[in-house]
């Protein structure tokens, strides 16, 4: 670009110079030239999210600031026969936000306003680009928080939480995102602005709001969300239980649930990850324990110790070698910091990891864990286990150095076996990461053809033109438009 051109491009006002590409020109008029990016390097950047999958170059990247702009992008994309992929912070682990076939990307990061706190109705209206932890911090002085707290909560967006039906350690008692969304404004693939759900107790019609949450961007894009406010609990008790084996820890978890206690969180870490964490942050975890269980109960002050002490007793019945109550907020924070930086700790051991996500019945946790260790041995990969034990949500971490020849094949093979072992135990494919492109090929292991056919009907009711994040969730042959039918874009189009 010459100096003159560069100067001109920064001048305000006036229509942008035509680029020769009608799609791009229309998008630039609908937004503004500086909010539509087509640079090759940027499009390759948005080809990836936090997963191992690469969608190749995206199409134009749009940064809308309003619902109307999102609707305009949708209509323009449809008129040009192009698919649309929404993107928040790009922290998904199943490839749900990667662009397939050069779609238009709608990045919602500039739609990041907390619009209204409506205490009387118990909701906050937010834009999709609001960061999860920012919202909770904003609510704290009022005595509330947003309950879903995924490990990525410092960066992931509420829009992304809605798309993935995100969970987190404290969803055991409070439920995942779907339990915390009252209403959603969405823009459909046809560019229609529609409000789903409502603030009233039982909105009319099909529960389209509930259906939309967790649909991974395939039913449209959300532009405004009413999330429910969760009251902060006045008292909290955090316990750290040590065990000789993961089996004892897992049995304690089943025992607690069977005893009718619903703790706020129950997280288990095996010895390998506990040692890595302790090495990394010195949170006070016992490195000689075979496994640790981090349990937390919260609620009114009066009865808080009843459940905490019962968890201790159940742990002791299951051979706990040590039970420690966090004495103050600092100790509690240190323990949680250890848990939440587990993935960072792993990076000290090898540069790459593949984080899996399956759910099994709680009573099968111990058996499936044994199976996972055996699978890792069989494929000669290193596995560490840190997981939301309370709801049976396993997160085996396969640790490797991607530069080692052939290692990815072994990682994928081990991952496939872990999924099979989980399904064989009566589990499901994903507890919180979603299907994306990662687990499409396993969908027919869980569902019958009829089941998948009906899921596709649901999708078509929202998006008959099949342009909202195509090629995700449903496996080939069950999706309304297989990705190869989408017009892909030659790399040279936007240089």
């Amino acid at each position, binding site marked *: 670009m010459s100096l003159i051109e560069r100067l001109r491009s920064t001048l305000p006002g006036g229509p942008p110079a035509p680029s020769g590409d009608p799609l791009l020109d229309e998008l630039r008029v609908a937004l503004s030239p500086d909010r539509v990016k087509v640079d090759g390097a940027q499009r390759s950047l948005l080809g990836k999210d936090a997963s191992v999958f690469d969608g190749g170059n995206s199409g134009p990247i749009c940064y809308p600031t309003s619902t109307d702009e999102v609707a305009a992008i949708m209509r323009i994309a449809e008129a040009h026969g192009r698919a649309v992929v929404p993107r928040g912070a790009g922290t998904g682990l199943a490839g749900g936000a990667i662009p397939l076939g050069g779609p238009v990307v709608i990045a919602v990061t500039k739609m990041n306003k907390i619009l209204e706190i409506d205490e009387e109705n118990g909701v906050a209206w937010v834009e999709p680009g609001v960061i999860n932890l920012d919202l909770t911090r904003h609510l704290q002085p009022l005595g509330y928080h947003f309950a879903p707290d995924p490990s990525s909560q410092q960066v992931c967006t509420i829009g992304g939480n809605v798309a993935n039906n995100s969970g987190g350690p404290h969803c055991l008692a409070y439920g995942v995102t779907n339990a915390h969304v009252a209403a959603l404004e969405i823009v459909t693939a046809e560019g229609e602005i529609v409000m789903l759900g409502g603030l009233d107790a039982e909105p009319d019609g*099909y529960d389209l709001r509930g259906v939309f949450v967790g649909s991974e961007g395939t039913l449209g894009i959300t532009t405004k969300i009413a999330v429910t406010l969760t009251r902060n609990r006045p008292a909290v008790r955090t316990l750290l239980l040590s065990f000789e084996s993961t089996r004892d820890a897992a049995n304690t978890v089943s025992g607690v649930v069977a005893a009718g206690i619903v703790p706020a969180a129950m997280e288990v870490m095996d010895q390998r990850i506990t040692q890595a964490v302790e090495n990394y942050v010195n949170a006070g975890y016992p490195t000689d324990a075979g496994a640790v269980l981090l349990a937390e109960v919260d609620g009114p002050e009066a009865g808080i110790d009843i459940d905490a002490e019962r968890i201790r007793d159940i742990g002791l019945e299951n051979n706990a070698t040590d039970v420690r109550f966090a004495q103050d907020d600092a100790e509690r924070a240190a323990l949680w910091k250890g848990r939440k930086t587990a993935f960072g700790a792993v990076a000290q051991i090898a540069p790459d990891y593949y984080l899996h996500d399956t759910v099994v019945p709680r009573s099968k946790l111990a058996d499936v864990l044994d199976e996972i260790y055996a699978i890792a041995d069989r494929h000669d990969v290193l596995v560490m286990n840190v997981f939301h034990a309370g709801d049976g949500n396993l997160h085996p971490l396969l640790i490797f150095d991607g530069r080692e020849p052939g290692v990815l094949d072994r990682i994928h093979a081990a991952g496939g076996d872990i999924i099979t072992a989980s399904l064989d135990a009566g589990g499901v494919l994903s507890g919180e990461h979603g299907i994306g492109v990662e687990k499409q090929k396993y969908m027919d292991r869980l569902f019958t053809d009829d089941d998948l056919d009906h899921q596709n009907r649901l999708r078509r009711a929202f998006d008959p033109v099949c342009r909202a994040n195509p090629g995700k969730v449903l496996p080939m042959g069950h999706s309304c438009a297989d990705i190869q039918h989408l017009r892909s874009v030659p790399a040279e189009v936007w240089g």
Partner: protein
Amino acid sequence: MTAVLHTSDPVLTAFADDVGTDGPVAIEGARTRWSLGGPLDDSARILTAPTGVVEYTPEEMIVTVRAGTTVADLHSELATKGQWTALPERGGTVGGAVAVGQNDFRRPARGEVRTSVLQVRYVSAEGRIVSGGGPTVKNVSGFDIPRLITGSLGTLGCIAEVILRTNPIPAIERWFASDDTDPFAVHAALLAPGAILWDGTTTTVQLVGHGVDVDADVTVLTSHGSFVEVEPPEAPSGERWSLAPADLPAVPELGIGPFVAEVGVGIVHAATPQVREPLDPGVRLIHERMKNEFDPAGRLNPGRVVGAH
């Protein structure tokens, strides 16, 4: 390779055969909410869903139950292990409660129906058994068919069997009433009441939890008015209004006669029906497409339309 959710349960297969592949058909439960969604077309063949608790694993806090089972039978079995579900006990069946999707009047204590249906099996308009969701308490594997079916009034499929999340019955449940208190101040003051009902004069509060927690809440209550302990109230009856929680203080001015409002929730029980706004055109379009996708010939529960007013 057989899919994990495939079922060859002969009871369900027989139900699918009953539904068949053509002709209008409707499933009846106990007909406690029979008029919802409009009058059933006379042409419909009326069937009942299979019954029975298939599998109950209290340590997993889930129960697999066939749709024709009454909620009362289900709950009496769960009570043996100190558990219950979010389904309201109004004399109806499990399938009916899921198809209707309305919550118990003690919703804060009981939970929501829509979040408690983990897996659903239904017979499709093509006479096929379709499963959605899964048997675990946490699951984001694919589209949320259970959410779609819950509250669909049987217009998308004939509910055959569900897996429900169960919850522990709290150690203590006590009810208190007062004629001289502000129910909304009580709602703001209590952390997690089981229910707060208000008829314009009397505020009736359910406290649940550990005994010591309930005792502490009683202290809070007495600082807000002269509460006396009462017997658990009957479930409110009549027409059901769905309002936003912030709309409730103005209910007495609506002139709808005697009412009972669920404070903090927004449901109002009254003698007169609520005049509801028609669905937004954009929402209605998705509804029409959904019905057409799932039941193109219109054979499921003909006459009934979800969200029609």
